[in-house]
């Protein structure tokens, strides 16, 4: 038998699928809550604090605080200990903590179109406006979580799963039978290699928590007792840090050898430094076309601009409140609060944020309205990335001038 992980959007019939799947396959259900509680008891961090690792409240622009890293390390440890057993159905956010090397895991994602999710919420007695807010919040958390762990903004990306079940066109029964059938497939059967991968995962988690307890934050991997630590932070006294890390890790039972190496992040600061002055470092992209906005985000990343993404006006405004981006790239046509409304509100409350309108359905009249409302620029889709970079640079110059 194998392990099934279920990662799902809110209001996607996930509870029904979980319950029925456990019954059909005779598996043990391991809920997110159980893993959180176990992590809490292993670390003596409160349950509530650990759960904050699933949220991205502090700032989407900054790296996780040390506390979150420690929580995640302990979530990994809790999960790794549970994986000693087979025949599990693991639900919720921890699903993404399992490394791909553990091959006897069937990774399932349950997701549905927004309309279907709103319908589900309605049958559960949640009014539409409230439901929309919950869904957006949940999606944002999912996106941040997946991005933190695998560097992918889209939590529903097919590449992350063995099966993505579209719940708007699949009944609970069909979903359960599909998943349980796939879980019998030889591709996800336990093997010596996958059992070893579980042991490696456990050792790496033990090392990671030991390091986190000492205040260190490094990427840990383990293979048959050999531990590799990747330092992703620029440290001048590198040798000293390496010795300190080795001294901690060498004491851990089951560790046969420790190696330290430098990761990409070690050299990252210089790149940011070079570009810091020319381009805004906090860009918020607001567009309901997910694919477009993600591609754009990646392309900006290649130009050393970190960007956050919002898929609708409402979440955009809450990000503006909490994280104060420098520049906002805004689509006009969006469901809910539209772009013009967002522009008005931003300019009324945070006039220092420069807003670049990027729209596919523009007109001269719209342009005039936006510019009168204080937009920095008005660009048409499809946009030339060089033109957009140039505009961002100009916006940054303006910000820097005003700040000076």
């Amino acid at each position, binding site marked *: 038998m194998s392990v099934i992980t279920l990662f799902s959007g809110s209001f996607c019939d996930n509870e029904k699928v979980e319950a029925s799947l456990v019954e059909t396959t005779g598996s043990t259900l391991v809920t997110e809550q159980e893993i959180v509680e176990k992590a809490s008891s292993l670390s003596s961090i409160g349950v509530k604090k650990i759960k904050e690792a699933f949220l991205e409240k502090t700032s989407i622009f900054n790296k996780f605080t040390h506390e979150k890293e420690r929580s995640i390390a302990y979530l990994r440890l809790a999960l790794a200990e549970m994986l000693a057993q087979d025949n599990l159905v693991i639900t919720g956010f921890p699903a993404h903590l399992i490394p791909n090397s553990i091959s006897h895991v069937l990774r399932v994602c349950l997701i549905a179109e927004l309309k279907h999710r709103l319908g589900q919420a309605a049958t559960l007695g949640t009014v539409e406006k409230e439901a929309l807010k919950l869904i957006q919040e949940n999606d944002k958390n999912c996106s941040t979580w997946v991005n933190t762990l695998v560097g992918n903004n889209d939590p529903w990306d097919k590449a992350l799963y063995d099966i993505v079940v579209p719940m708007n066109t699949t009944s609970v029964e069909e979903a359960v039978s599909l998943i349980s059938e796939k879980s019998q497939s030889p591709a996800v059967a336990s093997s010596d290699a996958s059992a070893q991968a579980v042991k490696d995962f456990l050792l790496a988690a033990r090392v990671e928590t030991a390091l986190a307890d000492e205040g260190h934050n490094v990427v840990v991997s383990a293979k048959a007792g050999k531990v590799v630590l990747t330092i992703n932070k620029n440290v001048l006294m590198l040798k000293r840090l390496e010795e300190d890390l080795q001294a901690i890790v060498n004491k851990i039972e089951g560790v046969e050898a420790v190696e330290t190496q430098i990761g990409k992040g070690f*050299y990252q600061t210089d790149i940011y430094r070079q570009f810091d002055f020319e381009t805004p470092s906090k860009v918020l992209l607001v567009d309901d076309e997910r694919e477009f906005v993600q591609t754009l985000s990646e392309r900006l990343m290649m130009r050393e601009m970190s960007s956050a993404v919002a898929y609708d006006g409402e979440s955009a405004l809450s990000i503006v409140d909490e994280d104060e981006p420098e520049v906002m790239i805004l689509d006009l046509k969006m469901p809910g609060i539209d772009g013009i409304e967002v522009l008005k509100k931003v300019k009324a409350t945070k006039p220092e944020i420069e807003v670049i309108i990027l729209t596919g359905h523009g007109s001269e009249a719209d342009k005039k309205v936006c510019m009168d409302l204080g937009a920095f620029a008005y660009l048409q889709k499809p946009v030339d990335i060089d033109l957009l970079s140039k505009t961002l640079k100009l916006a940054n110059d303006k910000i820097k001038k005003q700040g000076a």
Partner: protein
Amino acid sequence: MSKKDDILKAAITLFADRGFQDASMTEVAKMSGVSGATVFYHFKSKEALFLIALETVKDGIIQEFDQYLSEHDFESGLELAEGIISFYLYLAGTMEEWFLLLHSHYPYKLALVNEECRSHLEKIYNSLVDIFERAVALGREDGSISAGDSRKTALVIFSMVDGVVRFKIYNLYDTGALFNELINSCRKILKYKM
């Protein structure tokens, strides 16, 4: 002193005083009484000159400490630690330009992209912290120090002492008045048992 040494001495003073950006090779030449061409003949670029200046500071600090430690005897680890703290402050007072250079931002920025600069800085800090660490470890052996973790304690003590140096070179406070309290505080940290 050779011409090259004169140039270096002038370069350290100028880099320390003005920072990398605002120090010019022409001024280095003027200050050391040679022509601009001579400066460029010995040191190919401003960056190269800066690196050699930093290396000189590194060698200077290490040598000064070696000499101090070889000329003094200490009864215990704690006494050694106190001696080092005093000597660090003394050195920062007499060789102020070395510490001004070390407390400027440029070398750390350069270290991100320049391996040689990185290595000089790493050596300076490693040898300084090593000296503190040796004292803590020694004190733990002879019982004069009871701090838990030699390595981390050494880093914390060092950053405290170096912070006082910063107070001094930037004229933030009359640090002479802090000396006794600094020694007392370090003593408290070193003798504190968890």
